[in-house]
């Protein structure tokens, strides 16, 4: 097999060599090589026009054909702003792209070599140069100014009442922590990380007592949501494409991103016509061989649904009372209390949902 491939390659080379040789001989006999520019020059000039049609046609066709896939509907407030920016910028760029390419590909055709013509000696024109320095400068300034406004609005401090969710990246999945009833995330300490306490919750902080871990992200619609982002081992990056949200997760340096979701998951199911629709969070900073598999499900609920879900979550301590050991003695009581309280609330919540479904079936 191996020798067969080698022989084939050698044969191919020989044939190629012969063909080239023959072509050169033909050139010599037809004397086309003695001319400064012959038929090939005309063909190449013409091919640029063909290529112009090809690339412009392709540009229009793919932009229309692929529209159903790219830039899915934005599901956040700032997403609408950045999408606007994107479309405005892209429209300007498309105009420049089309105009420059029409010039770039028709000039070679129009001004291809002719024996009896002389090119125009045209070394400089300061006015022209001034124009095409200043116009891009103005357009770019406008784009920068608008971009800066949007960027500042997106990156300003999150509102006080934002729903806080902690996302922690690790090889190769995301860990999700909620602050629980007190809406305050407890402190964390990476030295306290272990098999169960995967995000290193620090139980010396009483705010941590009602914190709970979740397998997927639930957030309420039309309310500010603040993602507090961390990484446990290497860099990761939170990317929620529908919300136009991306922020790196960095070990040792907490980051954040806040936004207001505008469409619930069920809204999106209707909009996309896909009953299976789910929001997803992906990792966009290479983090090892499992990088492509760090999918995290995200659900946007309406307010009631979110409340119910939030209340039905068992706190970490309630689930793993063994960790009461790590609570300092003076806080042991409030910790135990919070477990009792949490069990009461979650119990109630479970009852509520049960009764609801019973009511529905009736």
């Amino acid at each position, binding site marked *: 097999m191996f020798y067969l491939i080698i022989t084939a390659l050698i044969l191919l080379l020989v044939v190629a060599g012969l063909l080239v040789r023959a072509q050169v001989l033909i050139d010599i006999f037809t004397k086309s090589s003695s001319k400064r520019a012959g038929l090939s020059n005309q063909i190449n000039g013409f091919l640029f026009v063909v290529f112009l049609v090809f690339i412009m046609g392709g540009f229009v066709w793919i932009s229309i054909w692929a529209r159903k896939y790219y830039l899915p509907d934005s599901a956040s407030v700032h997403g609408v702003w950045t999408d606007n920016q994107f479309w405005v910028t892209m429209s300007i760029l498309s105009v420049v792209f089309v105009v420059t390419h029409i010039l770039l590909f028709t000039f070679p055709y129009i001004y291809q070599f002719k024996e009896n013509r002389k*090119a125009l000696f045209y070394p400089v024109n300061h006015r022209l140069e001034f124009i095409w320095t200043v116009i891009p400068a103005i357009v770019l300034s406008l784009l920068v100014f608008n971009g800066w406004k949007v960027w500042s609005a997106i990156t300003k401090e999150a509102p006080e009442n934002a729903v806080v969710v902690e996302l922690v990246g690790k090889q190769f999945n995301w860990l999700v922590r909620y602050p629980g009833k007190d809406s305050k995330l407890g402190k964390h300490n990476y030295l306290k990380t272990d098999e169960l306490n995967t995000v290193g919750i620090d139980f010396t902080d009483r705010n941590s007592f009602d914190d709970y871990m979740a397998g997927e992200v639930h957030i309420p619609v039309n309310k500010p949501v603040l993602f507090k982002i961390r990484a446990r081992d290497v860099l990761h990056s939170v990317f929620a494409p529908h919300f*136009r949200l*991306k*922020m790196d997760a960095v070990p040792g340096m907490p980051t954040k991103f806040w936004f207001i979701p505008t469409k619930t998951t069920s809204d999106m199911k209707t909009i996309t016509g896909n009953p299976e629709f789910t929001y997803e969070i992906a990792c966009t900073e290479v983090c090892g061989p499992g990088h492509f598999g760090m999918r995290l499900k995200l659900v946007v609920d309406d307010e009631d649904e979110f409340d119910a879900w939030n209340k039905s979550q068992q706190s970490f301590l309630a689930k793993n009372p063994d960790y009461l050991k790590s609570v300092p003695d003076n806080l042991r009581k409030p910790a135990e209390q919070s477990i009792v309280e949490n069990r009461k609330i979650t119990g109630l919540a479970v009852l509520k949902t049960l009764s609801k479904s019973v009511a529905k079936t009736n």
Partner: protein
Amino acid sequence: MASIELHNPARSVDTHGHDHHDDHEHEEGTFLTKYIFSQDHKVIAKQFLISGMIWAILGGTLSSLFRLQLGFPDMDMSILKPILGGWIEDGKLNPEFYLAMVTMHGTIMVFFVLTAGLSGTFSNFLIPLQIGARDMASGFLNMLSYWFFFASSVLMMWSMFIETGPASGGWVIYPPLSALPQASPGSGTGMTMWLFSMALFIVSSLLGSINYVSTVINMRTKGMTFSRLPLTIWAFFFTAIIGILSFPVLFSAALLLIFDRSLGTSFYLSEIYINGEALPNMGGSPILFQHLFWFLGHPEVYIVILPALGITSEIIAVNSRKPIFGYKAMIGSIMAITLLSFIVWAHHMFVTGMNPFLGSIFMFLTLIIAIPSAVKAFNYITTLWRGNIVFTPAMLFSIGLVSFFISGGLTGVALGNSAIDIQLHDTYFVVAHFHLVMGSAAFFGMVAGVYHWFPKMFGRMMNEKLGYLHFWMTFVGIYCIFFPMHYTGIAGFPRRYYSFTTYDTFKTFGDLNAFISTAAIITFFAQFLLVFNFFYSIFRGRRAPLNPWRSNTLEWTTPIHPGHGNWVGEIPHVFRWPYDYSKPGAEEDFIMQTVPYSETTSSNLEGEVDPVEEESSSKVHA
């Protein structure tokens, strides 16, 4: 004799080169000193070129392999088992190996092909020839530069054959992934070898750059003022300056990473819990590495593209039979790009958690750099306008470069806007952007340079028809690969993904990915047209005339096979700028730089008179 040759080759040719009948008769030294440890800038250039070609084929092969995975995820790849061995598991590519290939593709293409292969080849080959010098300022350092590059290449190549595989954290090798051997197999020995190989590479690059800069400043022939330098030289000059200023920063970044890996320091590491173990490192910052890396990394893209733009400027002017439009503006924009290239790096880091205020600043600075780039593009188009265009393969590739530079550069305006970048960062939109604007454009510059200066390198012509075929297949192919990638990028497809099937959001575009992969593989194979043409023409190409493209620059005044020392007898003097093409009143449509104004009275413009012969005639003359 041999020892004199080693110390001052230029002079030895000067004194012995009077009866230059046969091209090979007067080359002194053994095969070893002539072709292997040569100090002749032309031989070193060819060494860089051929090494670069080998690397390019390897880099291209890697991309074809991972494109197979991306385009045809269900394909049975057992057929590749004889080559890839254990990296194919049950007919599937190993995901770790996929990342390793992506990493090596990036490293190889950016550093080994487009930095060493492009600057190494053409700066070396053209600087002495076009400024009128016998050789580089230091032939010895120049030789060292190649052999450091060679050592670096050997190490990098070797790393691909070790059991745990080569580095696999992306060509940007962000820590902690690259710092912790336990984070991925490629972060072990492979990463160590990557770092040492890059350290050698940086030494090579610095030796080269220092040489280029000092040669351009000190060794120009009489009359070759800065304002008479061809744009190629201006581009190589500033490229070398960028390299000198930025590569040491990468070196320091790599050094700190080596410390973190081997000496237990915590420059980039803090609060890490990995594989059931909390590491003791505290207080380091992975973002610090990114700042240091991109302080080289961004200028690096200009190190890659500027020489290509310089080459294109020359080729477009020659083959349009017109002076380059706005010579001074072209120099000005190269200067502006050089300066600005150092203060835009953090646009790679808008969403790293860096202070958003910094993001605003870098957005502003980034979009400024679009202005000189736009000026360059407009000037190229104006140069074509009312020209008398000859389509040599080099010319075709140069026009192709301008097209890529525009279409890739434009999307940079979208990416440089931090608000838009939130969505597009690390998606295929970025991949499409930089593959067009720096990858393909710089590659086209390199190929154009090969076609254009091949006659000077080997004394023979390359086959034009094969060149045309090569160009059209590559040009169409590259657009078929990278144009659609913008759309997958806008749809949010992240980079460096082994497969997209895990996500509902990224399940679309299967057909498009298959199309891109097919185009990529065809385009890759089309490159063998060049490889064949290149090696075939070295031996069997038609003999080249003295000045095949009817060009003005000095390299075409040397003999067809220039010996070591380039010119027989005295180095020619220069009397005019390099772009007197189609000058009204002139007999021919080109006037070489060596022709004094006194011989072209019919075409002289106002103020164009030869300087009065004085021994102290100034070198800096505007």
